[in-house]
């Protein structure tokens, strides 16, 4: 408990969290502070490339064991399964229509890569290692949830589910970049890492700060515009669902026999909700679902929840249980 608290407090006064808080406060106060779209996208490409590359380098150093394939499979099952739980909870806890509930559910089965990155950075700071291939699991968890959600509303007449759409969600830029840089890191190993470490490693935390500043700005604007949709039931769901996801992630991580860090990351991935890939897919496939609901919930409630409370909690629980 003490450990949890101290981790939580350490986490809260880190530059990363405070940068997010600054962005949130600025947007809520209607400051005109903003980060150009191109720069934000550039930073997210940097973060994906760096995190994927480092994961690959770690795999090249430690080799892979059987659990790589098992972990990927487990990730896919988690991503595909979580939307059903989310959907059931939403139908019970909130008054959302089937359509809106399915769209929200897709977000919670999928993952937020920034939450993942923030979790690795907390682990790094705490000196806890993790399996490098978890980054590949993160990529594998992006898309399956979308299919589950579409299945949930498939009775609703004709749905986009052609080959084109499948290709679009599977070859999504962030999946391709994550997997691609993972493979590059794997192929070039420590030597490749040394050549570009002062680019992908040294400034990483700082770029993450500015990126979270932007996330704060965007979340704050979303809350300002979408707060009307945040009925009490939805807010409760936004905090309960990540905890539910984390429990399932914990169980999965333990069953896979992962290290403390690996278990914590499985928890964080399951707990996190998408806010880029899934919203875009929902606009294509379920255009009648209200985007204000899923975006506000994912970015305005669950993301901050995970960043401030969730991650330190998951790390502490994983440490406790694995005895790490």
């Amino acid at each position, binding site marked *: 408990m003490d450990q949890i608290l101290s981790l939580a407090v350490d986490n809260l006064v880190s530059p990363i969290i405070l940068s997010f808080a600054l962005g949130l406060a600025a947007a809520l106060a209607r400051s005109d502070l903003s980060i150009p779209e191109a720069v934000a996208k550039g930073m997210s490409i940097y973060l994906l490339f760096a995190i994927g590359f480092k994961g690959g380098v770690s795999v090249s150093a430690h080799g892979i064991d059987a659990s790589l394939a098992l972990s990927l499979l487990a990730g896919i099952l988690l991503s595909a399964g979580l939307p059903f739980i989310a959907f059931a909870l939403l139908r019970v806890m909130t008054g959302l229509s089937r359509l809106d509930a399915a769209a929200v559910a897709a977000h919670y089965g999928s993952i937020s890569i920034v939450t993942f990155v923030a979790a690795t950075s907390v682990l790094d700071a705490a000196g806890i290692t993790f399996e490098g291939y978890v980054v590949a699991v993160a990529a594998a968890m992006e898309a399956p949830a979308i299919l589950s959600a579409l299945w949930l509303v498939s009775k609703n007449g004709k749905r986009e589910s052609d080959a084109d759409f499948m290709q679009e969600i599977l070859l999504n830029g962030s999946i391709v970049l994550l997997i691609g840089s993972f493979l590059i890191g794997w192929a070039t190993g420590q030597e490749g890492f040394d050549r570009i470490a002062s680019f992908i490693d040294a400034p990483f935390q700082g770029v993450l700060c500015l990126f979270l500043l932007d996330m704060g700005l965007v979340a704050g604007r979303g809350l300002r515009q979408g707060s009307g949709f945040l009925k009490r039931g939805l807010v409760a769901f936004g905090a309960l669902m990540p905890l539910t996801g984390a429990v399932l992630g914990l169980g999965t991580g333990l069953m896979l026999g992962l290290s403390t860090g690996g278990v914590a990351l499985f928890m964080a991935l399951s707990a996190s909700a998408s*806010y880029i890939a899934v919203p875009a897919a929902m606009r*294509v496939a379920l255009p009648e679902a209200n985007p*204000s609901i899923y*975006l506000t919930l994912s*970015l305005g409630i669950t993301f901050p929840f995970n960043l401030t409370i969730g991650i330190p909690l998951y790390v502490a629980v994983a440490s406790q249980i694995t005895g790490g």
Partner: protein
Amino acid sequence: MKTHKAKRVSIIIEQVMQRRLAEAMHSADVTGYTVFPVLGGSGRSGEWSREGQVSRAGGMVQVVCVIRPERLDKLLEAAFELVERHIGIVTVSDVEVLRADRF
């Protein structure tokens, strides 16, 4: 200078639908169009802006198509199918063009 009558069709649509709109236009034999960026806007679904939007995936674009009057209906039908289920604004106006052979 000699000009010729044509129609200018403007379709404001979500960026994620742009490729599908292009395909629909190609099936309607419309191969000439120009895509413009949109910074933000307001409508029944509220206000949004490119920098301020919750998901940057959610932006819109404007597709402008200059077309011979007799081909208008085919284009509108192709566009309408997409715009029907999705957010989108379609406007048509009269224009004169310099070189009719291009359209």
